[in-house]
């Protein structure tokens, strides 16, 4: 008998719908994408797939041989489709949790909790969008690119990586109609000094109403500087070590600059998406 995805949550109070669900999803595939990343495709309950780009799930990772991950691992959504029930995560094997994820085979079940957090916004006045991201941060922006295409926005994607062949999601961004620029460390095209004129030329041509970024504090500082200079807003998806993922434990706080003050916000609850200008 094959497994089917199951909702584990108890019913929501009458008249309310649960904002996020704890569910048992079924692994469809779990395959290497390149030397560093793997793509996990799940069959998940449709009710758990009312997602926004930038949101994440908390995955209860199986234990790999000799290790014992205890807490769930937050993972940004790479792809979701409520119609087919597909939920995708792109991950780099880096610790006990992701080593456990790498052991999953088609047909295995995986306990998922989500969708969680606040996703990216895309106000009407942001018609020309520029994504600038690095490494696995590109995966976080993939659903945003799809949303941009669906809303008819013009999209430029600057994909940064250590080597050109490690730049993630380049084809995916092209499929979503983006102009894709790959920059990398080997030829020095990924440094802030090299990126600045590239981005400023597009700003001068009126092609940037807003930035979206993820995965690099160097890119964040560059975009904060360009944003201040040229009056361009934007959003960043941030990471922090989490425990509950719901906002209860207050483990995942980060500092944000709001006016003259520095305040703490929970990445899981107020984020993981924040205004670029306020991020630190």
């Amino acid at each position, binding site marked *: 008998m094959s497994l089917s995805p199951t909702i584990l*949550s108890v019913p929501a109070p009458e008249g309310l719908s649960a904002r996020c669900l*704890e569910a048992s999803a079924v692994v469809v595939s779990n395959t290497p994408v390149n030397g560093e990343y793997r793509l996990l495709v799940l069959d998940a309950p449709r009710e758990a797939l009312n997602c926004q780009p930038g949101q994440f799930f908390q995955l209860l990772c199986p234990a790999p041989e000799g290790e014992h991950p205890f807490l769930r691992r937050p993972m940004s959504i790479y792809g979701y489709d409520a119609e087919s029930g597909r939920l995708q995560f792109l991950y780099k094997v880096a610790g006990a949790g992701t080593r456990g994820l790498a052991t999953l085979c088609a047909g295995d079940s995986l306990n998922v909790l989500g969708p969680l957090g606040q996703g990216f916004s895309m106000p009407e006045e942001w018609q020309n969008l520029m994504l600038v991201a690095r490494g696995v941060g590109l995966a976080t922006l993939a659903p945003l690119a799809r949303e941009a295409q669906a809303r008819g926005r013009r999209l430029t994607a600057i994909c940064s990586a250590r080597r050109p062949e490690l730049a993630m999601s380049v084809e995916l961004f092209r499929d979503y109609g983006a102009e894709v620029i790959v920059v990398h460390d080997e030829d020095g095209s990924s440094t802030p000094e090299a990126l600045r004129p590239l981005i400023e030329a597009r700003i001068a041509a009126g092609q940037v109403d807003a930035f979206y970024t993820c995965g690099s504090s160097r890119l964040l500082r560059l975009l904060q500087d360009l944003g201040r200079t040229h009056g361009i807003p934007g959003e960043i998806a941030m990471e922090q070590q989490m425990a509950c993922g719901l906002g209860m*434990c207050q483990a995942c706080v980060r500092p944000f600059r709001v006016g003259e003050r520095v305040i703490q916000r929970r990445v899981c609850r107020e984020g993981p998406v924040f205004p670029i200008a306020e991020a630190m």
Partner: protein
Amino acid sequence: MKDLMTPDLSAQVGALRLANPIMPASGTFSEDLSDVFDLDILGAHVLKTIMHGKRDGNPTPRVCDLQGGMLNAIGIPSKGIEDFRERMLPYWARYGAPLVVSISAHSMDEFAQLCAEVSLPGVAAIEANISCPNIEANGQAFAMRPETTRDVVTRLRAETDLPLWAKLTPNTGEPVEVALAAEAAGADALVVANTALGMSIDISTRRPRLGNVMGGMSGPAIKPIALRMTYQTAQACRIPVIGCGGIATLDDVLEFLIAGAAAVQVGTATFQSPTVMARLVAELSGWMQAQGVTSLSQIIGTVEAPAEGLHE
């Protein structure tokens, strides 16, 4: 014939009657969990510890993952008493479950003042967190010693007519003396216990894995310690004991009840499975029905003497 009556899950904690014995542990629960299930399923609502003033809490990383549990050094970030009065208390009024407010302070004066200030309509009980290892240097806390426990509980008792629960620490070498001191000073119930002070080092960087260096260990790995203390304190005291520490399954709940707990708190397990408390209420009911157990009194404190000289 089997008794097919619906079992009575209600739990008596001093003067307070709870619909069932399952409640969250302070610090692992907030209104955010209402995104996942109907919080009125629970026997009580225990809020994260508040302190009088505003506090940011500890530097990150605030948690680390361990085999069978976790360490935390959150450091009680608090929005202070005003936020409690103006935002939290009105929010929790929408629920029927009794509201238990956890409080803490650095000094006895501040503790006593806060206790008076949170003794408001809508609050069903006060849980005095005299045991948090994360707010004082080297894990010191009032509940480390019987004398300081007696002094602080005496002060708090004088400030409130509400049921007063004292949350104890597993880090003391004198758990029974501390429990008796809290009882003698007027506590209405004991919560046994808080996290165990611990530490973890990342060998690749040689840095502590918590920003605060040390933190509180929680999760299934500390369950035997909390169960032992629940048993010890329930044997020694007349006031009810609320078991807390590593409870994640129905068997865990039953173990604590059999050891003498009148009710239990579930904490870290909610981080692994946010629906666990709702599941435990249903599973306890199902188990009691299947066993023909009609009330918790048939479980609580029924621990037997060890079997002697029995061989398979």
